[in-house]
């Protein structure tokens, strides 16, 4: 169904991070917001993405914001970096989704929702770390990887899942001895993302726990946040709710805190 060869082909086809993005992130890391916005403005697609993102109701701005320096100014260093990483991920996402009933707009919405709520979680946990804040941006890569690897064998997977409850991550592990999250780690390396991003992402899988207590704790919050989002009707309809297995035991000790923070009743 899927072989290691298919995975290698997929990884080989991942484009390197464009120079403009590399420069923008490097400048954001050096806290040079103005210079970063000037570089970012050179890429029309990135500019359009940022404008579209920041003008979503989720951000709550009354007037439309079009200037990149203004956008970076409003978002601040961390959120700007997150947005650039989110944009990088859209370069990987398919033009037409076939496995999941997603489109450009719903995928952006998932990215934006995750980013905003991750920010809220980190504020609650008193964590101020630009790289940790950006870790959430790699999470939807697991969905893109599932789409890329499984879309051509959709019928087979449906038949398989019709007789046995298997998620995409487990199928991949049993067939190829690797996981969606290991592949995301390779993407992160290729894009020269800080290693902590991939570490947290792997812990967020619910199956590849980290030995680092802090990273594991962040992985739990991210795992729960993912399923909080994937329980929204839009993403259940997109058949995303069970693309990986939700590990309830893993997140049980933080659930009360999470539910208070997200005002779940």
């Amino acid at each position, binding site marked *: *169904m899927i072989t290691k060869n298919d995975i290698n082909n997929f990884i080989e086809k991942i484009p390197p991070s464009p120079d403009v993005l590399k420069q923008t992130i490097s400048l954001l890391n050096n806290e040079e917001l103005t210079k970063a916005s000037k570089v970012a403005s050179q890429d029309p697609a990135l500019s359009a993405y940022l404008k579209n993102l920041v003008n979503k109701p989720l951000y709550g701005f009354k007037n439309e914001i079009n200037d990149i320096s203004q956008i970076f100014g409003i978002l601040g260093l961390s959120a700007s970096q997150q947005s650039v990483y989110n944009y990088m991920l859209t370069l990987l996402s398919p033009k037409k989704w076939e496995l999941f009933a997603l489109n450009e707009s719903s995928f952006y919405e998932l990215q934006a929702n995750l980013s905003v709520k991750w920010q809220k979680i980190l504020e609650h946990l008193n964590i101020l770390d630009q790289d940790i804040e950006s870790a959430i941006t790699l999470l939807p890569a697991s969905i893109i990887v599932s789409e890329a690897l499984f879309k051509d064998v959709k*019928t087979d997977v449906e038949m398989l899942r019709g*007789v*046995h409850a298997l998620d995409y991550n487990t199928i991949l592990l049993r067939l190829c001895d690797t996981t969606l999250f290991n592949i995301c780690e390779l993407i992160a390396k290729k894009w020269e993302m800080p290693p902590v991003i991939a570490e947290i992402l792997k812990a967020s899988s619910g199956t590849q726990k980290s030995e680092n207590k802090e990273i594991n704790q962040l992985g739990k919050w991210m795992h729960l946040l993912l399923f909080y989002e994937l*329980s929204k*009707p839009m993403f259940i*309809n997109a058949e995303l*709710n069970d693309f990986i*297995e939700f590990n*309830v035991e893993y997140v049980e000790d933080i659930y009360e805190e999470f539910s208070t923070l997200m005002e779940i009743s």
Partner: protein
Amino acid sequence: MRAIVKNGIGVFTPQGFLDGNNSSTFLSIEDIEVTSQLNADTILVSLKKVIFFNKNGLDIFVKLFKKIREKNSITVGFCDYDKKKFQAINRFYSNDMSFSLFKTLEIASLFSQSFKNQQKNILLYSDDKSQRTAMAIELHDNGHNPIVAPTLEDFNEKASNKAAYDYIIEYTFLGQMGQKIATRVTGNAIIYTVSAFLDTDIGNTFNIAYHHNSLNVGFRLFIFDAYKVISMNIHAFNFFSKLSTSAAEYNATIVFVGLDFTKIPESFKENMEDAGILFYEQMDDILQNKELLKELGASSASNVINKRVIDKSTVTKLPNFIDATVSTIEMMTNSKAVKETVEVNNIEIKEKEGRIASSIGFYGDIDGMVILVFPTEIAKKACELLIGEKTDDVELILDTLAELVNIVGGKIKMLLGDHKISVNITLPRTYHSVDDLLEVVENKKGVQVDLAFDNDKFLFFLTK
């Protein structure tokens, strides 16, 4: 979302958060319709992967339960929860809880008559006395040994000695239990369990489609486990007589085990015997007697009735059947298949050692049966994807192989559907050895395709 059926229990497994906003997206009208057509004696919603739910979130599933019960009279309910969730569900539906609650899926299976392993020592407790009694009766009826703890203190004391019990049941509630006649397969015999007073309702609770499918796939021995039958009236008597007459067309045998005739007219017994029904006192009188099993047809499939037989039109669809099979095995083993020879002849298996087999029938616009003979190692490899680990447990491999062949059957149905050929598939059947298979198909003519998967020989046989 669709339920996955295993051993007669269909299970939905929603994930994450269940509330009024999203619950209707988990179950469409089509999902409900498909569920009502499943061949299951229990439908459950597992809450194992649900971290939060409220009443609005559960309501959609409770509505599903009501519809399924009205239509199919089977057991419905929730399973896989903790004490907190159990108390919440009780609070939400305290006035109208017609569904059941099973702490785990394993516990639910103890109450299912399709459960194969009986005679378990089970400690149980409920603070509701009538529930304790109801559970004890159900478990006893299913062949288990229930030990009822009358008080929580007594339960806690007994439960501390976990080794003394196979299962410990608490936080479980029995709503209306299923009235469908439970079915299980033992070897190559189908066992139906009937109980209490048998009347006209037998026509509703007996799954006639399942029975016909079983005949079509080659089962020839049908045993009614009737230890718990009190009596029967003329309607039930007529039903069984007709069933036996129609089974005779397939050379199949209907047997009653444990039926007590003290409250049944003697004339019923004579007339049922005239219709070809046999009576035995103990199940083991049949199941432990291999000669008798053979005589009764538990390994024979001769004189199969088929209105439409395999012919040129079926054979022209052969590439579809092979494609469906090969792609499924390739998918499960992640290896490539090479087609070696194709011949129209009686089945010929050169190497019999280290091989197991499975078959699945299809009927409708065309009828036939696909037989697959696997080297045990390929079967093991294919099953690893479903089981998640290597195993040498032959029964587990055969069970999983049945799931795999079910996938093949589903694929055949779909591929033929693409060519406007409508068929239904039967239950898969597995064979421990090539000799077991040959007893069924030795003299059947069909199309044999020899395939190689990574140098292991694999055989595909299409017959009527």
